[in-house]
């Protein structure tokens, strides 16, 4: 396991330390990352989560200096929560209803819908969108630009799919072609690919 890990959250990016590692390992990993990806967090707020590691004032100062090597970084916060178990679940909202025409769901992280998304309805998520029902409206996964997001539906018949900055629309013909299996949409080589959902 890496000494540091990153997670995209609703507020920005969390930087999480591995509580098993020594301060020196964390520091080196951070120096390496700031060198490799100095423009990675341009305009993004960073939430540093020491994850139970006790830091001295000197160590903290060192870390702050390193963190400012990220160009144009937003605000830097230190948080004190144990993220190992919680964040994974908090980042997803479960909606137990059909989304009808004119309704719009907007959520910064993952969205799971138990029900249909009707034509004229819109679901916008910062992360993945999973629909346990028919998806016939417009959905936008990874709306903040996260193009590795995916869209999964039991019946994927969308008016329009958007992932990150990429948009694709349903073909004008084949409108009545009903999918027989659950499908997954994702981005590959700048295009949205739809294929039958395979369990890994």
């Amino acid at each position, binding site marked *: 396991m890496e000494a540091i890990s990153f997670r995209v959250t609703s507020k920005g990016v969390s930087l999480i330390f591995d509580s098993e590692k020594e301060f020196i390992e964390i520091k080196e990993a951070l120096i390496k990352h700031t060198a490799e990806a100095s423009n990675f967090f341009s305009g993004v707020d960073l939430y540093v989560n020491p994850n139970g590691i006790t830091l001295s004032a000197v160590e903290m100062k060192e870390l702050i200096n390193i963190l400012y090597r990220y160009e144009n970084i937003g605000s830097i916060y230190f948080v004190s929560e144990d993220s190992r178990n919680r964040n994974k679940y908090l980042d997803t909202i479960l909606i137990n209803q059909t989304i009808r*025409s*004119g*309704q*719009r769901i907007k959520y910064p992280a993952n969205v799971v819908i138990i029900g249909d998304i009707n*034509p*004229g309805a*819109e679901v916008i998520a910062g992360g993945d969108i999973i629909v346990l029902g028919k998806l016939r409206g*417009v959905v936008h996964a990874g709306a903040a630009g996260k193009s590795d997001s995916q869209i999964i539906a039991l019946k994927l018949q969308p*008016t*329009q799919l958007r992932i990150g900055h990429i*948009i694709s*629309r*349903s073909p*004008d013909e084949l409108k009545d072609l009903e999918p027989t299996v659950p499908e997954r949409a994702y981005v590959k080589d700048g295009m949205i690919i739809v294929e039958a959902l395979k369990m890994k």
Partner: protein
Amino acid sequence: MAGEVIVITSGKGGVGKTTTTANIGTALAMMGKRVCLIDADIGLRNLDVVMGLENRIVYDIVDVVEGSCRLEQALIRDKRHNNLFLLPAAQTRDKSAVTPYQMKELTEALKKEMDYVLVDSPAGIEQGFKNSIAGADRAIIVTTPEVSAVRDADRIIGLLETEGLKDPEVIINRLRPEMVNKGDMMDIDDMIEILAIKLLGVVPEDENIVISTNKGEPIVLKNDNSRAGTAYHNIARRITGEEIPLISLDKDTFLSKLKRIVGLS
């Protein structure tokens, strides 16, 4: 180029404003005119569906007035005619998202680029209606041969006159000639007598309209001389200033043809 902004309105719902807008717009485009259709029914948009362009919407009229995108980005080019455009309504907002002043600015900008800007008004006489007539140079009222629809049309004519939109024209939609002949339906003269405005055209009830609406293909696209399709083509030509006589609405039965041939009718 200074185009004309025409609002299509009715007061009453369900009389065929959207179908009329789609067909007249398409017919004008088929005549080579540059046409933009505006769906002013924010929150209950339909024109995109009737035009078969729903899956192309990325930005809408609210995005334009709020400055989230440029006007050209929100315009959807028709899939059949490259001189026909649609500015879709927003579905997840309501009428108050646009003001009459913003609407006027929008139509002013569009008519510089277009020959005709058709505004599909929502039903009612509240803010959506006020928005839709804000930038209009001309008004077309759609009504059906029902007392309630004619009553609402009359009310609308009064409101338009108050707003300074003089000389609106009327389209009588969904007329059933056989019912009129039997005296079971208001006839054209009855309606014109009440409304006392110029008759722009009469569109007979035609089940092909239902089919074409559901497919997202305006009936004027079909080359089958359907009665409704012909009526819309004629209305479009009258809008451009041509003099076209009203089509005969009586169905050609074998007997009526025979009578005409032998000179009895």
